[in-house]
């Protein structure tokens, strides 16, 4: 099995790291460079940074991205307002290992195909936001959460995997930022035909949940946001990661 990867997910707003719940009420949690330094020390597998400014279609914060890339000593994935090849080229040259495309890029599939062709599939990831509705069906949410797509989850996953991206990150909107626990029922819904790596994120609140996910050979990694940023019910900011023994046990499980 592919090694299981545990990746902190950080949200950027302008020059700050922020965190909210279900993509709302974002509060300041720290300076991105300090947080990356802490994650370097904690020997984090890789880091995912998503720019909330993408929702308002603002330009990429090139200065900050360059500083983060200079500081980062593990793979760094970035997702933001990315819709042309030149931006991907620039991000890659700045030191961003993986570029994360999203739902809004699906309307131009030739852009995604060209990006995979030029940079290789392992450089292009895809982030898909899904939400469980009142009928317990998982539906696709677009980046701006302004309308819901009626496409089925597996149809969308198959569409994305046909574009040969390196991995698909599936984010559960209902539990994002809540630390309420991962919705394991979604695993029964994912029936992908291809072998594309899948990373899951949304509400993960313990090492044990990651251990459970890692036992599923179809799942390549877990994205964790709030659990690595907040401590306790009062949401004190405490940047953390799993300890070395925990990471070692995950490694031994998959070899």
């Amino acid at each position: 099995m592919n090694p299981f990867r545990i990746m902190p997910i950080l949200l950027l707003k302008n020059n700050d790291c922020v965190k909210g719940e279900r993509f709302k009420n974002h509060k300041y949690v720290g300076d991105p460079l300090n947080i990356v330094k802490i994650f370097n020390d904690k020997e984090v597998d890789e880091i995912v940074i998503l720019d909330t400014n993408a929702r308002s279609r603002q330009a990429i914060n090139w200065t900050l991205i360059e500083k983060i890339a200079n500081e980062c000593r593990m793979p760094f994935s970035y997702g933001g307002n990315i819709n042309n090849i030149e931006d991907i080229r620039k991000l890659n040259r700045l030191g961003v290992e993986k570029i994360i495309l999203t739902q809004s890029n699906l309307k131009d599939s030739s852009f995604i195909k060209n990006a995979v062709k030029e940079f290789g599939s392992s450089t292009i990831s895809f982030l898909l936001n899904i939400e469980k509705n009142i009928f317990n069906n998982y539906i696709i949410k677009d980046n701006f959460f302004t309308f819901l797509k009626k496409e089925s989850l597996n149809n969308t996953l198959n569409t994305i995997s046909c574009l040969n991206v390196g991995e698909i990150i599936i984010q559960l909107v209902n539990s994002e930022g809540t630390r309420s626990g991962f919705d394991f029922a979604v695993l029964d819904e994912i029936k992908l035909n291809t072998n594309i790596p899948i990373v899951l994120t949304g509400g993960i609140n313990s090492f044990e949940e990651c251990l459970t996910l890692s036992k599923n050979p179809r799942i390549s990694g877990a994205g964790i946001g709030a659990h690595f940023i907040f401590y306790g019910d009062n949401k004190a900011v405490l940047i953390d990661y799993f300890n070395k023994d925990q990471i070692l046990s995950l490694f031994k499980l998959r070899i």
Partner: protein
Amino acid sequence: MTITILDLNLGNLKSIHSVINSLSDKIYIKISNDRKVIDQSDKLIISGVGAFDTAVNNIELMNLRNPLNEFRDSGKPILGICLGMQLMTKFSEEGNLNGLGWVDGNCKKFSGSLVQVPHMGWNIVDYEQECPLFLNIPHFTEKHPRFYFVHSYYVDLNDETYNIGKTQYGIDFISSFSKGNLFGVQFHPEKSLNYGISLFKNFLNI
């Protein structure tokens, strides 16, 4: 000391620059494909992520085959990272063009029926003590360091005189080799935290 990171327009070289820069302010680091710059360097790093033939094409288009061969003949240390390591071989199953041919071997693809391809994530390297790249390297498990890998092809050598590092992914594949002035690593030390930093320190000291 001057180190050149060869610019083949393939992948992220800045991270390598950042790590080496953080190790010493007495090193001149250049990202370049200029033959004069390469020739005058003390050490060379060839790194890349992408297709084998694209890299070979770029070497030909930039007229770099001769300068690179001359650098190899000079005996000055060369570190190949990921695709850079693969380029040192004769050819790859991935493409049709000839590699640099510096090492007697070729590149093969992981079998998709055995393992998920690409091999992506952290894995351990079972290295030989004699390889200078791994001197005093920190360990993740009791005996082995870990590094970040992302690749679909691996190097298969016909020469058993090389110092070999091995990693298990379905099969035991060669994750590092060294002989004389040639060093190759399949993983990305610039993305491998303190393990990679240690490896770069060792390369600077060779």
